[in-house]
């Protein structure tokens, strides 16, 4: 079964802080995604990647950087965290050629920026 893990599961930081969220998938999927989930907005795509070294901009990229170091690992970086980035962050992976491009989600990271 598909496996996507995220760390940390919870993070509290202060305004201006530096935060890195980690995601690892063991599905051998090429595509990986970072979303944020906020009440009233559903899931919004921040960045995604086709493979190691590739990065694509999503719908809400401002204030976020990302890096895909290997096929398995995708990182989301907040270099100057702001309270508006307080949210629940999900990582996902997919193989677009299979089953309606089903995305498999990690357990989420809850980030609070004070």
């Amino acid at each position, binding site marked *: 079964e598909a496996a996507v893990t995220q760390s940390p599961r919870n993070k509290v930081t202060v305004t201006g802080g530096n935060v890195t969220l980690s995601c690892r998938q063991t599905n051998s999927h090429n595509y990986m995604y970072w979303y944020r989930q906020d009440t009233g907005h*559903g899931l919004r795509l921040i960045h995604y990647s086709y493979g190691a070294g590739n990065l694509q901009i999503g719908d809400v990229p401002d204030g976020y950087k990302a890096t895909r170091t290997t096929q398995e690992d995708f990182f989301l970086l907040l270099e100057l965290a702001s309270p508006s980035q307080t949210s629940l962050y999900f990582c996902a992976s997919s193989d677009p050629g299979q089953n309606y491009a089903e995305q498999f989600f990690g357990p989420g990271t809850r980030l609070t920026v004070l």
Partner: protein
Amino acid sequence: QQQVRQSPQSLTVWEGETAILNCSYEDSTFDYFPWYWQFPRESPALLIAIRPVSNKKEDGRFTIFFNKREKKLSLHITDSQPGDSATYFCAAILSSGSWQLIFGSGTQLTVMP
């Protein structure tokens, strides 16, 4: 700009009733429409999906009805159960593009016993 819209925002039905969740989209080039569900404190997961070549997709108590002309679809949950209580997200994909999932804002369904 919200390309996928859902209504209602929240819905409460009694056990055994049929719940109807609505979705509409703007981009006529979308060609996959998955529905994801998310239980409290869990991650979203694929529930059921349809391609526009069909106007109906059924999986047990869950049925998608699709109207390509009106750019609308709906998810019908028959014989609703308390265990169906979750947030349901309609999504759309452009398969010839980035395979990016465009999510609606979700419908929170509560099934009362």
